[in-house]
C-alpha cells in the first residue's frame, strides 16, 4: 500500500482546508459572518455538546471560515490540527492553558518579542504559571535550568527583533529527554522558511497578523499541535490526561488521541477564555496565505539587499541579519532557514539612542509603527517603543538596546528602500 502522492507547499498554501463550499459551491472561502448554528434535533445538539460529533455550535468555539484557516496553517506546518485565536498573544495563552497548572513553570528564551516577555513574566504569574528566562544561544542552558515542575520550553525559531536563530533540534532533544513540551513561535520564519515540527517541536504558535496574513490588515494567532506528544505518559499534563469535570469526566487524550490538544483548545480553551478569531480576519489571512510563498521570496530578496547595503554604511555599527556571512547565526540560518533568514532584522547606529529616534522620524517610505510582516516596509526603534517596558538590561538581553533599529522589509522596489534609508541616515547624522 503506497501512500498518497504528497502535494507541494505552494499547492497546499492555496488549497489546504478550502475545498469548495459544500452547500453553495463557492470557490473562494465564504466569510461566515455568523454567530450560531441550528441543531438538527435535540439528539444532534446533545452529540455536539458531548463532542461526539463534529459541527458548529457557536462561533466562539468554532466558525466555518476560521476552521478553514486552522486546517491550512496546520497543514503547512505539518501538524495534526490547529486552533486560531484573536491574536498571537491569545494563541500563546491558549497553548499554555492546555498544558500548565498553577505552580508549574516553563523555560523561555530571553530572545523573544518584548510583548511575549511581558506576557510570560508578568501576566502569566497571575495564573500561577512561572516563566524562567534562559539565554538560548547555548542550548545547554535549558538543560541546566530544568526543574521538576517544568512543563515546557518556549523559543522563537527566528527571534524578534534580533536576527537570532535558535538551534531547534538541540533544544528539542533536551525537551524530549526531559519529557516536556517544546513550543516554537514560528511567526517570523513562517512555515515557508522553517517547519519546527520537522525539527522536533511539539507545538508551534503564530501571530498570523504578520507574514501569514501579510498585508497588515488582520489580527490573529494560531496554535498548531504536532500530535506527537504523549500527554498521558508522565502525569504532568492532567488537563489533557485526567477526567475533565466540565465534560462529565471525559479524558481528552484517551478519547481524542493525537487530536486531544486541538479538541481541548476549542472545546475548553476558546469556550472558557473566549479569544475567538473574527471570521473577517480569518478570510483576509486565508487570502494572504495563498501568496505566502511568492511574498516570502520577495521579502527575503529585499531584506538581503537592504542588509548588505547597511553593513557597508559608515554610520552603522553592526547589522544583525542571519543572511549575512558575518552573522554568528549564519550557519544556523543555512540549516534551519535555507531559503532565507526572513525579512525582519536589527542594526545598530553609531549615534546611539538619539540617532535611532532621529532616523525613524526622517524616513518617508518606511512606516514608523509597531508591527512586522507587512507588504510595506516598517521601521521602529524598540528601546523607545515595543521594548520600553523592559529594563535596560532586559532590553539588551532581548537584542533591543538603546542603539538598535528594527526593520521589517516589505515588497517595494529594493532600490527605493535603500534610497529612503540613505536619506534618513543622512538626517540622523
Amino acid at each position, binding site marked *: 500500500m503506497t501512500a498518497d502522492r504528497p502535494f507541494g507547499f505552494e499547492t497546499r498554501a492555496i488549497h489546504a*482546508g478550502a475545498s469548495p463550499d459544500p452547500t453553495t459551491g463557492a470557490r473562494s472561502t465564504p466569510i461566515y459572518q455568523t454567530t450560531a448554528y441550528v441543531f438538527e434535533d435535540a439528539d444532534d445538539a446533545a452529540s455536539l455538546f458531548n463532542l461526539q460529533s463534529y459541527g458548529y455550535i457557536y462561533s466562539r468555539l*468554532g466558525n466555518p471560515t476560521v476552521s478553514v484557516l486552522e486546517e491550512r496553517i496546520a497543514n503547512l506546518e505539518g501538524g495534526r490540527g490547529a486552533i486560531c485565536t484573536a491574536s498571537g498573544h491569545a494563541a500563546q495563552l491558549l497553548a499554555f492553558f492546555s498544558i500548565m497548572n498553577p505552580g508549574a513553570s516553563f523555560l523561555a528564551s530571553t530572545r523573544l518579542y518584548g510583548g511575549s516577555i511581558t506576557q510570560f513574566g508578568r501576566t502569566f504569574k497571575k495564573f500561577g504559571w512561572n516563566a524562567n528566562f534562559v539565554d538560548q544561544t547555548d542550548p545547554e542552558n535549558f538543560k541546566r535550568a530544568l526543574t521538576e515542575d517544568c512543563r515546557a520550553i518556549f523559543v522563537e525559531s527566528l527571534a524578534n527583533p534580533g536576527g537570532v536563530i535558535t538551534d531547534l533540534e538541540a533544544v528539542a532533544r533536551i525537551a524530549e529527554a526531559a519529557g516536556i513540551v517544546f513550543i516554537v513561535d514560528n511567526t517570523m520564519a513562517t512555515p515557508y522558511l522553517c517547519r519546527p515540527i520537522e525539527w522536533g517541536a511539539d507545538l508551534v504558535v503564530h501571530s498570523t497578523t504578520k507574514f501569514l496574513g501579510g498585508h497588515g490588515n488582520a489580527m490573529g494567532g494560531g496554535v498548531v499541535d504536532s500530535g506527537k506528544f504523549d500527554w498521558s505518559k508522565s502525569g504532568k499534563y492532567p488537563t489533557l490526561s485526567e477526567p475533565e469535570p466540565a465534560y462529565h469526566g471525559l479524558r481528552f487524550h484517551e478519547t481524542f488521541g493525537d487530536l486531544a490538544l486541538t479538541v481541548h483548545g476549542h472545546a475548553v480553551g476558546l469556550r472558557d477564555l473566549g479569544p475567538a478569531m473574527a471570521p473577517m480576519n480569518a478570510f483576509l489571512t486565508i487570502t494572504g496565505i495563498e501568496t505566502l510563498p511568492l511574498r516570502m521570496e520577495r521579502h527575503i530578496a529585499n531584506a538581503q539587499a537592504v542588509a548588505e547595503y547597511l553593513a557597508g554604511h559608515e554610520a552603522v555599527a553592526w547589522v544583525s541579519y542571519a543572511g549575512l556571512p558575518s552573522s554568528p547565526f549564519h550557519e544556523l540560518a543555512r540549516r534551519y532557514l535555507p531559503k532565507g533568514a526572513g525579512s525582519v532584522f536589527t542594526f545598530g547606529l553609531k549615534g546611539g539612542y538619539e540617532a535611532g529616534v532621529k532616523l525613524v522620524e526622517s524616513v518617508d517610505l518606511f512606516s514608523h509603527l509597531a508591527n512586522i510582516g507587512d507588504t510595506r516596509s516598517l521601521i521602529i526603534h524598540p528601546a523607545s517603543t515595543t521594548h520600553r517596558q523592559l529594563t535596560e538590561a532586559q532590553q539588551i538581553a532581548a537584542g533591543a538596546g538603546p542603539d538598535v533599529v528594527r526593520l521589517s522589509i516589505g515588497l517595494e522596489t529594493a532600490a527605493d528602500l535603500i534610497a529612503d534609508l540613505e536619506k534618513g541616515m543622512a538626517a540622523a547624522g
Partner: protein
Amino acid sequence: MNHESYSDEYLRGILRRTRTIAMVGASPHWNRPSFFVLKYLQAKGFRVIPVNPKAAGEEILGEICYASLANVPVPIDMVDIFRASAAAPAIVEEAIRLGAKTVWMQIGVRHDEAAARAEAAGLSVVMNHCPKIEFSRLCGELGWNGVNTGIITARRHKRV
C-alpha cells in the same frame, strides 16, 4: 501489507463497502471513547452492533449488545476491535469464521500476526486507527475542528 500508514483510497474503499459493523468492546457509558465512535458511525448510516459480555442483553443506542461475536444474528461486514491488542487473535478468528470483509483495530490496538492471518483469509485490515476519525477526515468534517485532514481537492464536497 504495510500497516504503518494507509492510503486514503484504501480507507475509502473499506468504508464504502461496509454497512454493518460489530464493535467488540463497545461500552454502554456515554463518556467512553467506544460510545463516541458507535454513536458517530450510526449517525453516518452504519449499523453498529455492540459486543461486550459485561453489557450483554442491554440496549446501546437502540441496538442489543451481544456477549460475543458468535452471538450476533446478522451478517457482519466489519469487526471493530476496541480491546487490548492481546485479544485480537481470537477476535480475528471469529471474524474470519463469520465471513467479515474487514477487521479494524482501534488506536493503540495492533497485532501483526493476527493481521497477517486475516489478510491470508482475504480480509482487509486496518490497525491503530479510528473509523470515526478516518470517516470524518475523508468526508472533510474533521477540518471543522481545525484538524489537518490532508484532503486537497477542487471538487465539490462528497461523502467519503
